[in-house]
């Protein structure tokens, strides 16, 4: 029975998500057009993409206990290397993809090998610094490749026709869905492998792992490379979806948003990070247009100003979640069940 639910629920969700472009259902308030309209599909594709990227971050933060502040660097590497190779160097699609895959393996390998030599807060700071270096590099605009603050457009000559144009937004949607599924499957396999068990042991108690005779370092490096590589792939999808590279993917705030997504959904759980990534992106996009609505604009300034800033609402929501739902949204069903059967409190409640 459990086994059926374990495979059945994701399968049903997947089928429903895959059919979305075929349905012209209208969901008021949440979305501002029918499901099959290009605008809505674009938004949902972004949500799915961030569900995947958030899960790559969860491999580090939730499953291995590594607090990295530089994950944006890998997404940005995927975005910018693809855009530069296609647009500035005028490479073909396949050489470009091959090159980006190589970069996606080499970059996290080198940076991880260096930064994992320190742990805890020092690790957080080194990764933050590396990401900062990436941001500076993009702003510096070497040889006019990155386009500095304005970013760089995408040369569509080499992109398959199926991904070009507003009418083909549904294909981009499926691409984003495919990416989310790929990340989900790979992460599930990895977490359930023997390396995955060591990751969780490292998260719980690194010293105990050492006492048991295992070196945590190579296992942490595997997690770092896997997460970085999948994030680079996410960057490629991001580039196709947005249609250009912009420096916002290089900023520290981008990584902080990933952290918020993972904690929002529930770090180190099966679906938590994906739910968090999806909801955060949806809220971030929709709260912005909600604030432009006449209802909000007619409010007095004391209410209107905070309500028109999506990040203010998301930040506040995040703080409330950390305080009142420490396990994230994924822990809610368990909590509610616990309330009903008056079972003893969850471990983290007992600890607090």
């Amino acid at each position, binding site marked *: 029975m459990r086994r059926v639910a374990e495979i059945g629920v994701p399968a049903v969700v997947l089928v429903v998500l895959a059919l979305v472009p075929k349905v012209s259902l209208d969901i008021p308030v949440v979305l501002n057009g029918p499901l099959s309209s290009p605008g809505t599909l674009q938004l949902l594709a972004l949500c799915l993409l961030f569900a995947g990227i958030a899960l790559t971050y969860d491999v580090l933060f939730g499953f291995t206990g590594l607090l990295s502040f530089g994950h944006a660097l890998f997404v940005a590497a995927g975005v910018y290397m693809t855009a530069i190779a296609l647009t500035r160097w005028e490479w073909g699609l396949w050489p470009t993809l091959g090159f980006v895959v190589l970069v996606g393996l080499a970059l996290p390998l080198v940076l991880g090998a260096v930064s994992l030599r320190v742990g805890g807060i020092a690790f957080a700071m080194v990764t933050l610094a590396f990401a900062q270096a990436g941001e500076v*590099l993009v702003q510096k605009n070497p040889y006019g490749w990155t386009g500095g603050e304005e970013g760089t457009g995408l040369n569509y000559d080499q992109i398959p026709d199926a991904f070009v144009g507003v009418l083909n937004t549904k294909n981009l949607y499926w691409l984003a869905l495919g990416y989310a599924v790929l990340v989900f499957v790979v992460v599930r396999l990895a977490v359930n492998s023997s390396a995955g068990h060591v990751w969780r042991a490292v998260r719980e108690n690194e010293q105990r792992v050492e006492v048991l005779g295992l070196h945590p370092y190579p296992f942490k490096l595997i997690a770092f490379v896997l997460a970085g590589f999948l994030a680079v792939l996410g960057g490629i999808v991001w580039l196709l979806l947005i249609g250009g590279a912009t420096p916002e993917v290089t900023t520290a705030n981008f990584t902080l948003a990933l952290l918020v997504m993972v904690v929002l959904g529930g770090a180190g759980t099966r679906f938590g990070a994906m739910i968090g990534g999806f909801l955060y992106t949806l809220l971030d996009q929709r709260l912005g247009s909600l604030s432009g609505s006449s209802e909000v604009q007619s409010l007095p300034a004391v209410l209107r100003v905070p309500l*028109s800033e999506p990040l203010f609402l998301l930040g506040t929501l995040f703080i409330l979640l*950390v305080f009142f739902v420490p396990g994230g949204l994924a822990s809610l069903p368990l909590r509610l069940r616990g309330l009903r059967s008056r079972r003893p409190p969850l471990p983290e409640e007992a600890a607090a």
Partner: protein
Amino acid sequence: MSTFVLLTITGLGLGAMYFLVASGLSLIYGLMGVLNFAHGAFITVGAYLAWWFGDQIGGGAGTRLVVGGALGIAGGALVAALVELVLIRPLYQRPIEQVLVTVGLALALGALVQGIWGADPKPFPVPSWMIETTTILGASVPNDRFVEIGIAAAVLVGLTAFLRYTRFGLVIRAGVENRGMVSALGIDVRRAFTIVFALGGALAALAGVLSGVYFSVVDPTRGTSLLIFAFIVVVIGGFGSIGGSAVAAVTVGLIQQYANYYASSGTGDLAVVLLLAVVLLVRPSGLAPRVAH
């Protein structure tokens, strides 16, 4: 030669701001183990409050800067103390959650400032004598650089004296070394937590005001951009060490200025990141030992 002197003094002025931000961060982390991402928001809030109060008061740029700046610093301290009491205090013993709350706070406060005052830079009141230049060894140096360096030096002396000669300073220094022992001796460390947060908030707001003078405008991203370099300064200088922060701040400020001029623009930031990587790999605990002095 004159360029070198100008770069050196400008680098010291930049280092002065890094030091003001980093010293608060360093004390907070050293004492409480909280990596405070909201520190950037304290900078931004302080700078904007100073600008706003100055605007309300009116009068000459000097009056607006001094009165507005004082109120901005008080506001920064108040916001920081409130954050500690309301948001950080209930989460003692849960360090990851504390970091997460400061992350949420950084996002929310930054967005709030932008919502209230808009994303466009605001002109900061700078008295004309600060814009004028003084000639030193052939270099024309804007006078505001001396103000920044002087204030930071005064803060360094004052903070060191506070930590060394007052009872609170003693509790803070002891807490940085061994918090559990201080509690076991029957001293309420938590009062020191609030004081350190308020102090850090005031220093961050002061840095915000001085950055307003340095750049002659304030904008909502000011806090974040200063904060990242302040983090680097704290790590290089060693957590909990005021002296270490001062040395690291000056080093970072100077390297940035020299490399940006003599190599190319932007190289300075990369050089600083490289320095951080090297320091961490050679001495993971930072340059100074973990003692507040």
